[in-house]
């Protein structure tokens, strides 16, 4: 009978949901997460569409349930090294990066962080503010433990410091900690590595990186979030002013044969939500969404975008902007796009128009995690030409990868939003349950 344990790679909402379902089925789950805390991209969101639930409110209970489950073994700050064997009997080595913190002793109190002198850009807040070298990714992190970021810690750089060691009353700092390598035997593997935002700087015409007030969707999310760097005040990067007119540009890098030919599926609703949040915070604020096709395809999505138009001062302009320039002294971005103007005689003329706004949000394409390609080779998995994990039979087995016994759910295998990722996570759990259940036939059957 194959081993009754499962490896889940990726601690975002998909990985968490798959782990909870598998653990509730009585299987032993090893959840490997690259960063110090589970939560993934969803932890960075302020609200989620279309219900405007606060993201952390619905994510934190799942994180606590997952980490607290007897059958789930959390391996955070770790990566999968090597995978051998086949369905029912995989041998996996997992490399645990040293946190230089004794997890049993650390209570996540945060005294060390206050004293640590070293400040570095905070990835969780998309680099918009700083964190210390000894840090917890976000207040509701699970596990609620500190981590020392060896690359930026002064002690590792040039010796000395160790201020955190002095302040920690629990004696949890341990600079001698070594990398741990773990050998696991699992019956199946579920991949849920999620997505990275595509760097919009590639599209020179939008000037990301040069135009200060052109930011990405995720950066906006951190600005508008109550636990973000500006505590929810939408302060634009150039002068900290709260913009009264903002523009969202869709399909930045998506649906574009020069960059990513596919549609990332979530950005239309993501932009609509962010526009609603802006107006919720600042009732006088107006927002424009430059779109090609307004893809509001899920449950309650149409009603959500209608409400955006009727109640939240959002207007949709069907056009793909050609360029963004900036007005030097006001540092306001100016969006250049083509529009069709109808004369009275029913004739129409196409002309270039411009709209000066105070903040531009680029809704960039979303791509599988950077580390995803190397992991795929490592596990012998095929990728499709867009870089997603290839699924042999999309219709009958939508979560089975090219390697029997390895399943993939969430954004790593195709662009999808949170509910679809959660569904695919449970689907992967079902496929694992079938594979590992005693009287199941060989994995080749459907």
């Amino acid at each position: 009978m194959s081993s009754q344990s499962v490896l889940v790679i990726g601690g975002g909402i998909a990985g968490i949901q798959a782990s909870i379902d598998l653990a509730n089925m009585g299987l032993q789950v090893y959840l490997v997460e690259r960063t110090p805390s589970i939560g993934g991209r969803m932890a960075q969101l302020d609200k989620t569409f279309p219900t405007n639930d606060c993201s952390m409110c619905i994510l934190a209970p799942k994180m606590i349930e997952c980490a607290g489950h007897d059958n789930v073994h959390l391996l955070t700050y770790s990566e999968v090294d090597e995978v051998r064997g086949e369905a029912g009997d995989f041998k996996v080595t997992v490399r645990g990066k040293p946190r230089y913190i004794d997890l049993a002793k650390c209570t996540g109190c945060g005294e060390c962080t206050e004293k640590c002198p070293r400040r570095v850009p905070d990835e969780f807040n998309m680099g918009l503010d700083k964190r210390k070298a000894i840090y917890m990714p976000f207040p509701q992190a699970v596990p609620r433990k500190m981590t020392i970021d060896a690359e930026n810690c002064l002690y590792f750089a040039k010796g000395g410091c160790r201020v955190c060691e002095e302040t920690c009353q629990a004696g949890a700092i341990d600079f001698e900690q070594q990398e741990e390598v773990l050998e696991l035997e699992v019956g199946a593997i579920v991949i849920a590595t999620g997505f990275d935002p595509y760097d919009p700087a590639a599209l020179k015409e939008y000037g990301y990186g040069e135009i200060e007030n052109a930011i990405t969707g995720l950066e906006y999310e951190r600005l508008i979030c109550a636990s973000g760097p500006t505590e929810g005040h939408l302060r634009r990067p150039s002068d900290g002013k709260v913009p009264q007119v903002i523009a969202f540009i869709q399909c930045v890098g998506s649906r574009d044969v020069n960059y990513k030919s596919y549609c990332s599926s979530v950005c239309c609703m993501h932009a609509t939500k962010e526009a609603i949040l802006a107006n919720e915070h600042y009732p006088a604020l107006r927002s424009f969404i430059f779109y090609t096709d307004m893809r509001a395809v899920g449950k309650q999505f149409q009603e959500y975008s209608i409400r955006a138009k009727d109640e939240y001062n959002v207007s949709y302009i069907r056009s793909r902007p050609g360029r963004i320039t900036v007005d030097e002294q006001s540092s306001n971005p100016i969006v250049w796009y083509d529009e069709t103007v109808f004369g009275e005689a029913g004739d129409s003329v196409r002309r270039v128009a411009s709209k000066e706004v105070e903040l531009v949000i680029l809704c960039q394409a979303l791509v599988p995690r950077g580390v995803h390609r190397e992991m795929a080779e490592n596990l012998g998995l095929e990728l499709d030409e867009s870089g997603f994990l290839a699924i042999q039979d999309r219709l009958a087995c939508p979560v089975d990868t090219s390697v029997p016994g390895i399943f993939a759910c969430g954004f790593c295998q195709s662009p999808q939003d949170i509910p679809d990722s959660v569904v695919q996570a449970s689907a992967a759990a079902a496929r694992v349950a079938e594979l590992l259940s005693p009287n199941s036939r060989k994995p080749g059957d459907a």
Partner: protein
Amino acid sequence: MPKTRVGVFVCHCGNNIGGVVRVPEVVEDARHLPNVVCVEDNLYTCSEEGLSSIKEQIAEQNLSRVVVASCTPRTHEPLFKEACEEAGLNRYLFEFVNIREHCSWVHRHDPARATEKAKELVRMGVAKARYLEPQEEFESEVFPAALVVGGGVAGMTAALSLANQGIQVYVVEREEKLGGLVRELRTLFPTEQDTGELLSPLMEQVRGHPQITVYLGSEVENVEGFIGDFQVTVGSDGQNSELQVGTVIVATGAQELRPSGMYGYSTLPNVVTQLEFEESFKSGADLPPNVVMINCVGARVPERTYCGRFCCSTAIKNAIWLKEQDPDAKVSVLHRDVMAYGVDIEDSYRGAMELGVRFLRYDIQNPPQVLGAKRAEAVKVQHQLMGKEVILPADLVVLTTPLVPREDSERLSKMLKVPLGTEGFFLEAHLKLRPIEFSTDGIYVCGSARYPSSIPESVSQAYAAAAKAGIPIRDGSVRVEAITVFCDERTCSACGNCVEVCPFGAVELEEGKFGRIASVSVAQCKGCGCCVAACPSGAMQQRGFDDRQLLSMIGALAEGMVSGGGR
């Protein structure tokens, strides 16, 4: 009744608490509280040595209650309850007092009043602890079988997945054959496989699987009971059979909107829906040279605001099929947005354009008009981009309509006591994080019964439903946290307030020893306590949050405010 012996453990949490709250004073103050027999403070109560000191005190002092004053119960309560249980004390004789997040961390500049507040919070915690009672978590048996309502692609996939996990499954299908809506298709999207390639293996395995029993031409007549023990009556042409199952999956799918009265449908013979096109034209009928498809028919309109999600990909599939059969055919698709989300549909959308399919955008204000008296001859449309009117010759007009809920969903929703959403599809527990579960435990939904879903999405949801429906069965029993409500038979006057307010239908009026009283189904009760607040006579109480406990906390706080504070 042996005197209640309360142990209080006040935590320093390093100096997170101790740095602001003068813990020794709190410890002293707690010593004088009624029934308190031992008070301790530790640097880290949640550390190994903190937990072991609690266990020791429980043994040494024979404690019958434990109160820990430290951080937040939301993360640490399970940890301390575990420790109490290991020391032989019922885990519900434990009370948590938050003096970190709610006290020391937020009153850093006012240690005096933070200490005063911590003392009062401990007093309130001890006051409640004195009235805590041991509880046993209720376990109800789960019958090892599942019911799947609907034998379409979603129903069959869910049934097979459960059966492959070794679970007995009953599938109830209304039609005489399995296959559902997909059976009416010829080719599938995006793989352009023939429908049989997907359906035949599924149908064979379902019919052949030893763990699956199929009832064709049958309907669910009645469902009673709750998670773990549903009694289901299935009616097949006249005679009923009784089934007992632990969980239920709704996979009843949806039906194509027949847009009568729109664009000449049902009056002009050559105006058909996508499904009718699939049946009639794909079986070899001669193909018309000019085909105009109109999308968003009866969708994203005021009377039906939702988007049909995959009708655009159906239109693209059939447009591509037409161009492949006859490259010179003129195929145009009139749309308001092309919902080609994801990788595959976007590729096909670009592929269709490369094959010469014309996509024209129209506006809801001036929709296309089908011209022709007895037969459709052309379609006039205001081209939104070019801003001028275009007349497209049309030998065949294909209307792309969304799926709409089945008429009898209402009946099934009443039987299962699960809600329908505003559009008439089944309403899930949580749109984002529990998309295929109902708030009523033990019942799940997948496929277009929840919302129009393409085949891969319906199949994913089917597997997900199988995972969820399998869990209670594999576990064999369902544990309910002992914070449920109970009704005191002697004092209940059966006024019915509790029955009205319960969001989960867990309370009903029944004949009891003392006449009619409210009776609670513990398995259904989620422990919100709404009924307790609605009960004038206080007959309904909630374990762990009963009126004695909460009132004594108020009393402890109001102590000394008024002579004769409520003890």
